């Protein structure tokens, strides 16, 4: 290295930082190597050290005299080996660090336990919520069923209460003397109901259905089809009509026929 380069190194300010202990390990090794190699660097370092030592002296403060005894008592001298090993092993800062790390360890463990407990509780609550939701859904279904049943029953009660309804019991014919069904008809409301609860119709197969007819001035008018159902407790509303002399039921092909098959007339009733 040339003289100018050594001078530039000295003037870079690195030596001051070295004396102040403010260099990286690599810089420290470099400065020490330069000091060995170049007397100018070594002299510069010595001058910096001396000036800073004097600066500290210019700013010195006397500690309380009572400290001297404490300090002298805390040092181990070469005549007392056991005290030396005791002091060498001393690590004042360690307990604090350990306590800290223990604290975080426990805090972490506690957090983890809390997390697991929370997840379990959450799953439990979720399971119960699902049960409750299912229960609410099934209750809603029941509620709907009941509501529709009630509205149907309301309709049936109206039939019985309304004086404009006429009740007509259709009696069995020769081919089915035991058959019977009751028709409720209101010419005012133009409504026709049949009472399935009291109907005594022989059960029909899948290809056939009963068809209700009204006879108006001798002509049959279709009022809709129904199946025999001995379990039903309901009334069934049929098509509407304003005029009728008589009602009759015939057995027809499923879906009904445009004109009644007279041979298959099961019941009939006249006003």
């Amino acid at each position, binding site marked *: 290295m040339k003289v100018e380069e050594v001078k530039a190194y000295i003037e870079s300010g690195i030596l001051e930082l070295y004396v102040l202990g403010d260099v990286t390990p690599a810089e420290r090794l470099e400065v020490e190597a330069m000091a060995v190699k170049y007397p100018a660097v070594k002299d510069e370092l010595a001058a910096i050290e001396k000036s800073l030592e004097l600066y500290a002296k210019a700013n010195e403060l006397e500690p309380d005299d009572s400290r001297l005894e404490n300090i*002298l008592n805390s040092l181990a001298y070469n005549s007392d080996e056991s005290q030396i090993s005791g002091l060498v092993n001393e690590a004042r800062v360690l307990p604090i660090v350990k306590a800290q790390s223990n604290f975080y360890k426990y805090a972490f463990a506690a957090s983890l336990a809390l997390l697991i407990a929370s997840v379990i509780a959450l799953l439990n609550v979720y399971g119960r919520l699902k049960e409750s939701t299912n229960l609410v859904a099934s209750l809603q279904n029941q509620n709907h069923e009941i509501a529709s049943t009630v509205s149907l029953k309301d309709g049936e009660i109206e039939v019985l209460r309304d004086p404009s309804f006429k009740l007509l019991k259709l009696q069995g014919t020769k081919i089915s003397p035991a058959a019977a069904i009751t028709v409720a008809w209101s010419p005012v409301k133009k409504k026709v109901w049949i009472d399935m609860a009291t109907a005594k119709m022989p059960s029909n197969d899948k290809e056939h259905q009963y068809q209700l007819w009204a006879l108006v001035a001798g002509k049959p008018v279709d009022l809709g089809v129904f199946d025999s159902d001995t379990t039903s407790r309901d009334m069934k509303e049929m098509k509407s009509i304003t005029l009728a002399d008589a009602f009759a039921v015939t057995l027809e092909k499923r879906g009904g026929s445009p004109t009644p098959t007279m041979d298959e007339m099961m019941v009939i009733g006249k006003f």
Partner: protein
Amino acid sequence: MSRRHKISLSEEELIAALGKREKIAAEALYDMYSASLFGVISRIVIDTDTAEDVLQDTFVKIWNSFASYSAEKGRLFTWMVNIARNLAIDKIRSKDFKNQNKNQELENNVTFIDEKRNTVYNPELLGIKVLVEKLKPEQKSILDLVYFKGYTHVEAADELGVPLGTIKTRLRMAIVQLRKNFN
């Protein structure tokens, strides 16, 4: 404790005695350097009792790790003051110290301490004190930050808001100024 006669050894004698762990070395160390080290510690750690605790820790560490000191690499005081400064910084950065809320700004520290106590009158120091007076304010502030507050030059650059190169130059110029005392 009654004030006894102060012991003063040459640096070579002191180093030799420290190597042998003789009690006289501890007393000499205290008599020769405790005030200088305590001056540095006190400007970092304001509370007097805590600063004296750090001084005691410093002596214990100097004593126990003396084997790692190498006279070829520098002066004894340079090595000791760096130990003192590091222990003082460790103290103010430690959790229990922060909880006591004993931190203060540097600007307050130096005046605070200088008002609080009368430093010992020492005619030998007149020359350097005159030179300290002649330091430019920006030189004094950088020197106090790194020497008495234990800032790294990088932290000082941040604190003062000037580039690293400027920090290094100011620091060097401040020390060059102090060196005129013995040139």
